[in-house]
Structure formats: C-alpha cells, structure tokens
C-alpha cells in the first residue's frame, strides 16, 4: 500500500522547481514535467474572471506538451533574444501549499507565489504574484508535473513576463 502524497512532498517538489528556475538550471526544470504537460496561464476576461476555455478564449500562455517549454528555454538561452539578454534575476517565494486531493498515482496541489524580478537591463525591480494549481503524476519513483495552471493576479505586463517570472 502506497502512502498518500504529503504536504511535505508537495512543498519539496514546488520549492525545487522554483530553485531550478531561480538558478537557471532549465534542463533540470524541464525534467520535472511530464511529456504531455499542460502549462497554462489564462488571461483575464474581466476585473474578476480569468478565461476558462483555452480553445475558445485567450490565455497569456498555453502549451500542451513539454516540447513547447523546451522551445521557450531554447529562446531564453539562445542569446538571440534582446528581451532575454542579459537574463533578469528572479526569486520565487512559494507558500500556502495544500494537497487538495491525492491517491497513489495522482495529486492535486494548490499554492500561492510571488516572484521578484530585477531587470538588470532597465535597473528596475518588479513583483509578480498569483496562484498555482498543480496536477502531479507518479512516474515510477518520481512525481512529475502533469499540469500547471498559473493565475497571474497583476496582469498589466510591464514590457515582458517570461516563463521565469511566474
């Protein structure tokens, strides 16, 4: 009998993901996702509601499949993107982690985040904040991210928000 997924395990996974992004270990970050991951940051349709149907409504980011995240990483690290060079310095704080549902092979986790970003190019600091909803899936001994939904609460974007700042 497998023990249910605990909050300590969830925190460990989420904190590790944040560390990989903050320290720009993108290969290790990508390895935390399932190949069929849904990575979704909806847009807001009004002051109070985000969009809910990524096929009929706009998202800020929507990808099905890890290979799309690999594209984003390729662009970030290519040296060919003005907006990504030099890279901003980021620090994520992930908190209020709750396991909202779990069985032997799946877990639902919610959390809040703030991401502080220092844009060295423009000498300005910004803070982005919102909520995470994860679906985690057991793959052998590992738990991988099968779905990550990011609700960005301050969605007036100051010039750029990349996958490293959310």
């Amino acid at each position, binding site marked *: 009998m497998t023990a249910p997924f605990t909050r300590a395990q969830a925190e460990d996974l989420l904190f590790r993901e944040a560390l990989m992004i903050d320290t720009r270990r993108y290969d290790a970050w990508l390895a935390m996702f399932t190949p069929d991951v849904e990575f979704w*940051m*909806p*847009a*807001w*349709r*009004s*002051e109070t509601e985000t*969009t809910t149907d*990524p*096929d*009929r*409504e*706009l*998202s*800020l*980011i*929507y*990808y*099905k*499949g890890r*290979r*799309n995240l690999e*594209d*984003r990483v*390729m*662009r970030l690290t*290519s040296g*060919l*993107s*003005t*907006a*990504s060079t030099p890279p901003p310095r980021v620090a994520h704080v992930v908190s209020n982690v709750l396991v909202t549902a779990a069985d032997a092979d799946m877990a639902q986790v919610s959390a809040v985040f703030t991401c502080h970003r220092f844009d060295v*190019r*423009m000498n300005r600091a910004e803070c982005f904040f919102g909520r995470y909803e994860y679906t985690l899936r057991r793959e052998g001994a590992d738990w991988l991210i099968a779905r990550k939904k990011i609700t960005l609460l301050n*969605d*007036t*974007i*100051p*010039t*750029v*928000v*990349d996958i490293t700042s*959310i």
Partner: protein
Amino acid sequence: MTIDVSAYVDDRPDEGIFRVNRAIFTDEQVFEAEMARIFEGGWVFLGLEAQAPAPHDFFTTFAGRVPILVQRDGEGTFRAFVNSCPHKGARLAQTQAGNARLHVCPYHSWSFDSAGRSKAVKWQKAGCYSAAFDQQDHGLAAVPCFANYRGFLFGSLSADVPPLAEYLGEAAKLLDLVADQSEEGAELVPGQVTFTYQANWKLQLENCSDAYHFTSAHPSYIRVLERRQQETSGEVVASVWENSDYWKEETQGIGGGSYSFPNGHVLNWGVFGITPAIPLYESAAVLAERHGEGKRDWMFNMRNLTIFPNLQVAENASSQLRVIRPISPGLTEMRTWCIAPKGESDAARRQRIRQYEDFFNPTGMATPDDTVSYENCQIGFAGTVDPWLQGYARGMTASVEGGNRFSDRIGLNPARSVLADSQLCDETLYHAYYRAWAERMGDAA
C-alpha cells in the same frame, strides 16, 4: 502652445531627405501638444461594436488622457460620453465593460440612464440650488463626434473634424478586409491583454509598419518556427509563415510592399497565399465567391494596418487588434486583443488563438523583443550630438504616387505605394505618419 514642426520633422522630398529629430519622442511639450491636438483633438479609435453587443451594454476606454464611456441605450443606439460625473468629476463606470440601464456615481449618487441623460441629482429639491443650476443639463458630456464604420467605433473630442468616412478615406477598404471575413463581422476573443513599455507611443506606431526589424529582432522566434516546421506533432501549432518565404533574406522577387494614405494611415503587407496554416482557410472558397478572388486573396495576405493615431490591426502570425494609449513621453500602455471573424469553426478559432499567444503576447516569444527594443531606443534618444535619426530613408527611390497592380485588385487608391522584395523593407511609409503629425501639430496658433 506653438510647436515648430520643422524642428522635429525635416521633410525635403526634392532633396531626397526625410529625417526625424529624437526630441519628438522625449519632449514634454511635444507630448502635451500631441495629446491636445491629435489624441484629444481629432478622431481616435474607441473600440469595436462587438464589445457591447446588447442593449444597455457599455465599455470604457480613453481618448488621450480623457476617460470615455461607450454605451448602448435600450434601443441599442451607441453613444460616447466623457466617463466622468458632471458633479465632482469622478470616473463613473469603473469596469472595462458591463451592462447598465443606470449609472450611479459612487461618490454622491448622481445617476444617468443608458442614453447619458441625468436621472437624478440626489436630494435636488432639498438642495437649495439656484435657478441657474436647475436650468443646467446634468447629463453626461457627449463626445462631440462619434461614428461607427462597419463595427469600428471612433470618437473625437473636437467637433472641428472632417466626417469619419473622409478621415479614413481609402484606408477604410482595409478595415473592410477585416470586417468582411465573416458575414457577421469581427469580434474580440475573450481575454484582454494589457502591457506597458517605457518608451514613446510612436515607437509602436512605427514598429507595426517595420519590415526591416523582423529578422534582426526576432531570430529566436524564427529559430523556434524552423524547429516546429521540422516536426509533425499535434503539440505544435502550424505557423502562417511556414509556406511563405517573403521575409527570408534569400527570397527573390516582389513579395509585398507598403501603401500610405492621407491623415497618417499606412499598411505594410506581404504575400502569404491561401494556405491551411491560416485559420481563415476554411472560408477561402466562400470568401472568393462572396467578394471575388482579389479581395479574398487580400484577406489572406500578411497585413499590418495603422489607422492613425491609435488603432493597429496586425494580421501576420495571427490577428491582433491593438489600441495605443500614450501615458507620458516615455511610457505607453497597449491594450491588445485577438480579433477574429464571428462564426469561425472551433478548430480555426483554436489555431488562431495558439498562433496568437506565442507571437503577440507580452508573455510570448516575439513582442518582448520589440518592446525591449523600444526601450533601448528611448534610452538612446537622449543622444543629441546628432539628433537627426536616419531611419526614414529606405525605399526613397522606390516610392511612387498612387497604387499598383496589387491595390488595383481591390480598387484601393493609396496616396503612395512601394512594391518590395524581401530586402527593401520600405521606411517611407513612416513619412505618412510624420506628415500627418506635422499637419496636426503645425496648425498650432
């Protein structure tokens, strides 16, 4: 306030010289005059009819710095008002959009019906008002000119403007190419994206028309496209560029060009062809039947349209409607939407949205490389050793009066045109912006 426009725009066509002074992007007085004369002194785009589809629906926006309420009454008639209570000036409607038979000011409860008429001044009888006050109109101030061109709503805070049809002129036919993609017209896909950049509004004006930057500013995006092109996976979205090579440096022959129109409206365009990578493909046959092949083919062309000064419709990687809102000389807000023909299939809509997000969003892979470049320009504009920029000279010997065989296909009569191979990258279309700018700014008394 008098602006000496020759200090900012050096336009000597006979000598082959067109230059813009960096100060046009940074000067506070120029900005104040632009707000007064251009954004608050003439036609600006307010929004789409489809943003308020039902009786009593409204949406809010800005004309320059002035908050605007665009409202349908109970019969469905549109009007535009200054979104400000006549009592103390408080902003009346607080949300981007909504439905209201009655707007009640949250400050002192003055109320207005959906036609902008005063419904009540709270405790008016007990208010010991003078007769003069009681005789005043307490309704909302209407925007002096308001007009609807095929679902595109425009307003002017100055009454001294030509009719909208005259202001748009031939460029209206380019709005037709957007409106006619469906018999029901165009709509905005739910989900608005707003971003800011720390640079002047005219950088956005120019960049939309700028073919020269694409391979320089977006090589990382082009590399992603090339990588996606090599695989046939359900997880990647077809790019509209995949069957087109007009932007590739090795391409030979005419692939597009530019048209400019009076009053500062411009289009740059490229041939895409009728390809399944374009969401409109499902309607290719019916659109040809309905509008003729010439107009249908134009709907499939890459088109970046600016209706001066604040509306851009970009149909390239996907389809975007943008509204430019200048905040200060060095700060601009962009409100952006995915614009789409009503009634398209679920598959086409999904494809359009996916193509849109990656390219157009400030959270995507292309737009940030533009806006960061605007910010680099704004920093560089402080350089006054040689204040005159050299970015308005490409195409000078290719620009001709009138149209060409491509514009003839839809009976379009531009003031000037350039036919271009992939490396010409016309910069003379910016002349239309700055000539309109000089005309509007120069009649300062």
